[in-house]
């Protein structure tokens, strides 16, 4: 086996980040294949339970992608998501989990590059961080 390849689950909002990922595709921007994107209607519809489930099931990182502040298709979903994740990070810290494993990023439909960069960056960070300890805990 070569280097550790982290698994990242991505929740991408339909209107901006998912479209940004598309643009990365049509522009053939290359990034590591570690992300497993899941389309949601809005970053505000991502329940913390999904994120926790991903971490417990063995994901090494979770990315939530939403529209830029002020651009949410549903007015304010992204603000709600941001608040929720801030709290979630606190809980993660309390549990002894590295809170960098969960990230929320604003990626618009025209920011294919930003999407590709975000995924590359997150992949290398997670590689450095090593496997998600909670997942290992649950395996043994």
């Amino acid at each position, binding site marked *: 086996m070569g280097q550790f390849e982290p698994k990242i689950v991505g929740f991408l909002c339909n209107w901006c980040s998912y479209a940004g990922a598309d643009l990365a595709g049509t522009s053939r921007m290359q990034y590591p294949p570690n992300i497993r994107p899941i389309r949601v209607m809005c970053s*505000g519809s991502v329940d913390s339970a*999904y994120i926790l489930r991903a971490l417990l*099931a063995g994901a090494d990182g979770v990315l939530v992608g939403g529209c830029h502040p002020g651009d949410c298709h549903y007015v304010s979903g992204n603000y709600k998501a941001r608040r929720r994740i801030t709290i979630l990070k606190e809980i993660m810290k309390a549990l002894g989990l590295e809170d960098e494993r969960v990230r929320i990023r604003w990626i618009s439909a025209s920011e294919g590059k930003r999407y590709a960069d975000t995924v590359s960056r997150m992949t290398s960070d997670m590689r450095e961080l090593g496997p998600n300890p909670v997942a290992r805990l649950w395996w043994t």
Partner: protein
Amino acid sequence: MAKKVGAVMVIGGGIGGIQASLDLADSGFKVYLVDRKPDIGGAMSQLDKTFPTHDCRLCILSPKLKGCLRFGLGQYSNIELLSYADIEKVEGKAGDFKVTVKKLPRYVITEKCTGCGECLKVCPVEVPSEFEQGLVKRKAIYRPNPQILSFVIDKSICPSDCRECSKVCKPNAIVHEMQEEKVEVNVGAIILSSGFDTLNPHLKKEYGWGIFPNVITGLQFERVMSGTGPYQGQMLRPSDKKPARKIAWIQCVGSRDLKLDGRSYCSSVCCMHATKEAIIAKEGTSGSNITCHIYFMDMRCFGKDFDRYYERARKKCGVEYRRSRVAAVKEDPQTSNLRIRYESEEGELKEEEYDLVVLSLALDPPSGTQEVVQKLGIELNDYGFARADLFSPVQTSKKGIYVCGAVSGPKDIPETVVQASGAAAMASSLLSEVRGKLTEKKHYPPEVDVSDEEPRIGVFVCRCGMNIGGTVDVPRVVELAGSLPAVVYVEENLQTCSQGTQEKMKEAIRKHQLNRVVVACGTVRTHEPLFQETVREAGLNPHLLEIANIREECSWVHMREPERATQKAQELVRMAVAKAALIQPLFAMHSSVIQRALIIGGGLAGMVSALSVADQGFEVHVVEREKNLGGNLKNMHYTLEGKDISNFRDSLTTQVQKHPRIRVYKGAEIQNVGGYVGSYTTTMSQADDGSSPRAVSLEHGVIILATGAQEMKPQEYLYGEDERILTQLELEDMLTQPGAGIKKTKTVVMIQCVGSRDKDRPYCSRVCCSDAVKNALKIRELNSGANIFILYRDMTTYGFKESFYQEARSKGIVFVRYDEYKKPEVKLKDGVLQVEVTDPIIQRPLLFSVDLLVLSCAIVPPKDSPRLAEILKVPVNEDGFFLEAHVKLRPVDFSRRGIFLAGMAHGPKLIDETVAQAQAAAEKACTILSQPEIESETIIVQTNERQCRGCGICASVCPYEAIEIDEETKKARVIEILCQGCGSCSVACPSGALQQAGFTRKELLFMVDAAV
């Protein structure tokens, strides 16, 4: 009665044309959307972000585009797109035109082209790319816009003996022999929306565009900034691709320019456009060490929130504005840096060096306007734009032909969108009897109920030519799919999108009794509508489809790692299958519509929208607070252009009062509004002619809010203490009184921005500069000897109004600028009225003794706006004006469905602008009124009553007021018709009673499990 055709042709596929098409299709008309370019989207698709909110143009444009593209479903099948086509001939008259359209050959069969790009590798010729504004090259075979998959061939440069591209094209999509095609269409009305071009920068030789590589145009700079542009969004300059650290913008290049023929008008959008570019440059990653200077004459921030934006640029972002006309740009041949020579406001000659110079080019009528206009038989104005009527701004000189957007004069996006809906309203009124006659509803086989069946999933994996198959080992994906639970059928296709494969797919669904379908192919955004259609045609609910995007999110982005890409594709399919096993059919809810409108406000906006709705065949109730209709028009007499307002007002009021479908309630005040879109009940108290108020209750389907705004009574400059001090409206009244004292007046001073653009009201009131010029010219007409001074901060006579500013100056009216920190002072000394102001040019105070002091006062929202906002549950902005759903693209809508906004209630506006907006609001209202029933979204939230504890958290997080807590049962109730399906409430609900259809908790958790 003359024959009428229920179809409309829209010429121009920019944002205006798209909006008009969508509105017309929504309200029951067949639309032919014609564009000369091979793609639609217009200038907006080249912009990076839009001002003043910095919305990404793509996020806001693409949902609209999707409605128009050929994959469009259901109602949008009523828009037929004729892109890459020219108008050849127009015959007939209003109600019944015959238009011949020439479709140019693309030489590539769009349906076959997979966008693989093999052809690009072999094409030998290159020219500057139009889309990238010449910053990079494109081949003879090219993609007109990066968002569009399929190619076209530019025959003008394609060598006739080459044909290399045909050899490498796997799907055989290239047909070099393709011929142009003529189509004849029959329409009842035509809307011209062909947008604008920018000035040919070669005309301003002194700025060196085309000679010095680092002098670029504003649109080129858009491409420089754009993440999808040639420099991937880095601020580089063309000559050496080094970062640009110091950038200058030169404003009014070819605008307000008397030296160039016919270019005396102001292009209206460039002040904000340059401001936006500078802010984005400063806010970018290397922004802190970028210096931005903007050379300008007047900052014209007349739109909603523009002045705040300008303040943000100056005070927060550190963009420096220099009031000066630049004489020339020179290049240092060694460094390719540019030297700008300019005169400072104090009259000193200065020079400064920059890395990059951006020219804010004037907006021109689009090329080819002359010919189109000739074919249509409509008139141009003095500047070569399509002539529009001042009191009916989307009406051209010919009946049945309407105009919207920049082709009738420079305009920004919201104004274009407003006019587009306004033009759609005019066309709809003209053709109201034949509404729905030519639109088709597609017929589908009955839907099989599969909700109780065990899932039988069919998986279709697409190779997409080489696009997926070239990287991903498709057979292995197919193999894995076959091993997954509930999967009963798997198929591999070369090209799933093709007509043939879709027929096969339908057959497979029937033969294997599939009840859930997974397609592994390209992105949801383009493929979902297409395959939903297929699935529906096979007799399944369209939502029993799940897409695994193994192209944009896999094969195209992991081209160098085929093994891992294959594994990822397998997992994406596994995830999609996991969700597919759980998905259920979804249906839109229907709710009936009371086909009647309520209009709040009987001023200009209210009256125009009432007439427009009534002319489209619907009943209207108009509620006016005052005893008479007319609003501000009652105090206005003439326009800047010299048109008589009183006649216009009188004819409007009579039309409204006499209209058989309009009922007017005067002296009435709204008390309560209940219900939701389609069925509202409004109660008001009405006290006609002094009688004691009585309660009236009305039922209606939509609301147009047109409560207006008014001239503020000033608190400063001694107003009210001396009768020689008037507001502009008071002056206008005085000037029209017989025997007006103005004949003897010696010195008149006007002060601009009284109460506007200051701390309390940080917005520009838009109308006051035009009003001041208008009244000053009137005074000059009545009294040629008077000394007239206008003290201003920035003369905001935008668009064609600029010519009146020039006229005023040529007639000896003196304009003196004052600084925002050194406001003029008004003193009353022994009965002498004095005004003192410091002229920034000569840096000395000037003192006037005046006979008449006129204050150009701010426009302020009416006092009871907050009360009304609360009743209607709609927002107001910080300035007290009502806040629309989206500044750029939904300028007359509220986020709350069924309520629309028109006129000065939205923000200060001139007459023509108000009329357009009132018509736009009417059109939006009619898109709802024209249907007996309206449909909800399909992805909405569903409640489980048993789990609901009635805590009400869901209702408080819902941005659409779509959840109510039932008074009796104390349970949450979703008003389906209002729910937009964002899912916020389902996450907020502490007891798990709410679920987002199509994205339920179980579905998502299973997907998560399958992913890791």
